């Protein structure tokens, strides 16, 4: 049975319906970046017409950092809930009894988090642009915010940074046995890419179209690799029973090789540490 866009779509629709029924989830996603944006916005508005270019760069860099924090940080918590949350509310097992493939489930879940996270990021970006044009007294600020590399970075990095956080979050969610642990670990997942963003925002690297494209490509490859890792981590048996599946070359119905049994028993004896 092949990958089905219809099944993927069914999962995505379900996710979006759940947000619609619980708008609080999305509203709280948007609140945090709004709070963080207050300070850089005030800074931008207070920059006078004759301020040095380096001050303008720092202010704009800080603004973009916050703008890119949103798609990297916000989906992590929801993504970390995605699988372990279904498991805790008892809805995972019925899903797994259908022909749904793990790739379809995981992509549906990921898209369900990407859509609101990136949507919020783009809306915030638009709000900043409009506010700058209306209220900023320094023309260089308005110009810097509207630069091609900045816009390209926002457009490209928002979904790619969200992708990183989401795949790490879902990966944690497939292995965690507790929602709280998954969400706390998920939050930490957004730190590595943000470190790079911070370096760019504060001009340690000079922002350019080339740098934006290169960094975007690296993130894209990382997202694809992470997706494959998460798919491999998704173990129906473990999720349903809490026990690791003994996989056989042709699936169920055959006795696993003795070496596999010995390996599993050794892992069990050592509490998960594979000393071998």
């Amino acid at each position, binding site marked *: *049975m092949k990958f*089905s866009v*219809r*099944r993927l*779509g*069914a*999962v995505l*629709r*379900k996710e979006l*319906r*759940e947000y619609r*029924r*619980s708008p609080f989830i999305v509203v709280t996603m948007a609140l945090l970046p709004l709070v963080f944006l207050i300070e850089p916005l005030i800074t931008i508005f207070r920059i006078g017409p004759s301020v040095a270019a380096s001050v303008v760069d720092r202010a704009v860099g800080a603004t973009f950092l916050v703008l890119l924090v949103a798609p990297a940080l916000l989906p992590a918590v929801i993504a970390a809930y995605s699988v372990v949350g279904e498991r805790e*509310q*008892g*809805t*995972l*097992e*019925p*899903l*797994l*009894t*259908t*022909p*749904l*493939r793990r790739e379809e489930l995981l992509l549906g879940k990921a898209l369900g988090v990407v859509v609101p996270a990136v949507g919020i990021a783009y809306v915030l970006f638009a709000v900043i642009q409009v506010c700058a044009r209306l209220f900023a007294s320094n023309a260089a600020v308005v110009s810097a915010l509207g630069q091609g590399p900045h816009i390209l970075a926002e457009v490209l990095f928002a979904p790619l940074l969200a992708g990183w956080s989401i795949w790490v979050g879902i990966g944690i969610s497939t292995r965690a046995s507790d929602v709280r642990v998954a969400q706390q670990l998920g939050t930490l997942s957004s730190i590595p890419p943000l470190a790079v963003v911070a370096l760019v925002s504060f001009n340690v690297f000079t922002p350019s179209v080339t740098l934006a494209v290169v960094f975007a490509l690296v993130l894209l490859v990382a997202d694809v690799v992470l997706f494959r890792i998460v798919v491999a981590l998704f173990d*129906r*048996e473990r999720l*349903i*029973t809490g*026990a690791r*599946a*003994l*996989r*056989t070359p*042709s*699936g*169920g*119905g*055959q*006795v*696993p090789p003795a070496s596999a049994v010995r390996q*599993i*028993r050794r892992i*069990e004896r050592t509490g998960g540490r594979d000393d071998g």
Partner: protein
Amino acid sequence: MVAETMTDARGEQPSGKPLALVVDHLTKRFGERTAFEDVSFSVAQGEVFGFLGPNGAGKTTTVRTLGTLIAPTSGSASVAGIPLTSDNGPEIRQRIAIMPENPGLYRRLTVTENLQLFAGLYEQRHAAARIGEALEAVNLTARAGDLCGSLSKGLLQRVGLARALLNDPAVMFLDEPTSGLDPVAAHEVNDLINGLRQRGVTVFLTTHRLEEAERLCDRVAILSTTLRLVGRPDELRERLFSRSLIVETLTPLVAPDDVFNSTDGVESWRPEGASSYVLSVTDPRNSAPHVTRALVAAGADVVSISESRHSLEDVYLQLIDEDPEASQR
């Protein structure tokens, strides 16, 4: 091939019907712990098959294994005519439905929205019509727009059954469908299972309610890590318990030995209370007239003569009593 070589331990096979489930020496272990071992049975199409056993006997793990949620450690099986392998998982799941003990519905979504999700997962072409039929089958059309979080447990079970009907499954696994329900709600669910039988759906029912299994199931299997018995409920009773008559007289018999030992068809007897007697007989229906005549001839005032009826519960308890591990789970 498995079906032809079936032994009596798997229970008498309903003749002439193709098999919906064939399980052959299936075993599942989690590390050192054995969930179930060397389980073999078969279920014909359209049969309601009861799967009984104490807590921890391996019933749910068996259902999950046959539903391709977990892989067996050894043995083989075919589900809805498809060999049980991990490669065949999606195909098998397309042709079966599993209703877990907890229906696992999204409480923030309506009944219809829950069913729309699963109709999508089964890639139903005419999802709206199919959902309408499923809701009608479980008498829930009027509650289609209600949030699942607002429904009672009985109604949630019905939504779970409607969900299980969406893909028109060849085999339906119902895991404790009446668990935690009040008698009225349990009765409604039983009526629905009877409805499934009439529609020709093969039902694999795990339950703790033995009277429910006796009433609903064509055959039952009793599992306690290993399969203890498979057969029709009446067969199991006969296999485990000798047939007997219970005689009650107004006053105790003066010489019961003389009365019963010389009566045709009575193999042995024992007193039960002051003026009651339990007679082991070869055939209760043929022996009852002989016993009545012997009692009247002895001048006894007969209050009643009845056949001793053993329920499926008696069979179950007898088997579980014989299993020392079951009481330790």
